[in-house]
């Protein structure tokens, strides 16, 4: 097991945002976490990355309890996130944003990141044409590509994606998910959070459904695509791929 959340509770002041979430991600999987706006999806990813404190419960990564480890050290362990809203550094160029992705690879000498740049530009050719453009001037789709590419620069063992489809046209969404599948095929484990469930379920191995801070369903992703409740709640009653 690469990642395990065990009865994790997280509070914002007195409000309990995660009410005992348990989930697992195996090495090599794509796992989807779907849920409506406000269900606690982002809070779950932030807790895994160390941006939110657990009130109780455990977060284990590669056999180690990381629940109280500072966020920057979790990145060194191999947990990288492309956050909700993309979190592009607006004043930095595309190349500088990508360099930030490799920030945690302290020991790396200069030339070391060349292969990683090649890989990112191969996955996202659109970024290769915009190397010196500042992050703030990119389109939404380009920013999402940059956010994913930046996370890859750290050579993560676990890639966390928070709503990669947000605000993108359907065609771009399929393109992004195709690339997510490709990255997984290259050996990176992925936990993807989505409100827009169709693609997330079609591409994942397993999925969890989160409702107001609780996991209410857990199943192979394909079977959730055919689940009546899930279809009614998250697929608008219709399956798209």
């Amino acid at each position: 097991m690469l990642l395990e959340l065990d009865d994790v509770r997280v509070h914002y002041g007195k409000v309990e945002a995660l009410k005992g979430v348990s989930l697992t991600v195996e090495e090599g999987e794509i796992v989807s976490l779907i849920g409506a706006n406000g269900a606690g999806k982002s809070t779950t990813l932030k807790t895994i990355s160390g941006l939110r404190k657990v009130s109780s419960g455990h977060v284990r990564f590669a056999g180690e309890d990381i629940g109280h480890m500072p966020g920057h050290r979790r990145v060194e362990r191999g947990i990288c996130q492309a956050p909700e809203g993309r979190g592009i550094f607006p004043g930095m160029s595309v190349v500088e944003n990508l360099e930030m992705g490799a920030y945690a690879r302290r020991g790396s000498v200069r030339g070391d990141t060349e292969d990683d740049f090649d890989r990112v530009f191969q996955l996202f050719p659109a970024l290769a044409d915009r190397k010196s453009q500042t992050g703030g001037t990119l389109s939404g789709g380009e920013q999402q590509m940059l956010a994913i590419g930046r996370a890859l620069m750290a050579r993560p063992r676990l890639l966390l994606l928070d709503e990669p489809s947000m605000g993108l046209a359907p065609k771009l969404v399929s393109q992004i998910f195709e690339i997510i599948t490709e990255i997984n095929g290259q050996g990176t484990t992925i936990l993807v959070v989505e409100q827009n469930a169709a693609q997330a379920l079609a591409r994942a191995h397993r999925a969890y459904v989160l409702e107001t801070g609780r996991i209410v369903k857990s199943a192979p992703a394909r079977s959730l695509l055919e689940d009546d409740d899930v279809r009614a709640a998250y697929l608008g009653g219709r399956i798209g791929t």
Partner: protein
Amino acid sequence: MLKLINFAHSEIFMIGTFAALFTMHGLGIDHAIGGFALVGALLLCALAAAAASGGAAVVLERVAYRPLRKRGASRLAALISAIGASFFLQEVFALRYGRDTLSFPRILSKTVLFHIGDGAVRTDKVLVVVAALVMMFVLDRFVAATRLGRGIRATAQDPETAVLMGVNIDRVVMLTFLLGGIMAGGGALMYGVLLEQTRFDVGFVLGIKAFTAAVLGGIGNLRGALVGGFALGLIEAYGSSVWGTQWKDVIAFVVLVVVLMFRPTGILGEALERARA
């Protein structure tokens, strides 16, 4: 840099002037020297001032800012904490070294090199301008091109995402304060060489002027602050020649108020916003 103006920076600067002064006393300098002795003495003073100011800035961050940051306190709370720290440091120095102006020995002979119009160009001024430009250039390159510099900029632009990149925010903030302190120490020595005096409250008016320059140039923008500094200097110089030197500080305050009222993003603020949009 960190969306946080260190309003106790003026006292960090003041500490630097005292460190420079005591180093000169310690070296037994009481007359102008030249050659290698001068270079060595200035370097020693710079080192002492930078160490004192840098150390003070780091301590200040620990006791006055970090506890608030950890609790997610507002910027107003940080401002009040800084003003408290300012008064504390001023009073400590006033009690220890008195409230009178202390004068620096003249470490280098101030000869006029040449004239531009009516203005005399003196050795000390040339030295200070060159040193200031070098410091600005080094700082600018440092922030633009080093790993730590990138960490500082990332933290300034988006602290949560910076953590997701593996930036140790506590360390970056501390090192930013250290860097700011070292720069203040350098500035303190220049001030000592140029104006040859200091006092427990020497930082106050300078702090206001630095703030005005920063606001003029657009807060959080290094090059803007440089341009703002020049602009303020020119406005002050021009104003003094029209209304008299005694109005110089008044002019600086008026500029501050006017800019805050009409262009709170600064002269270069708009270009910066566009670059960020």
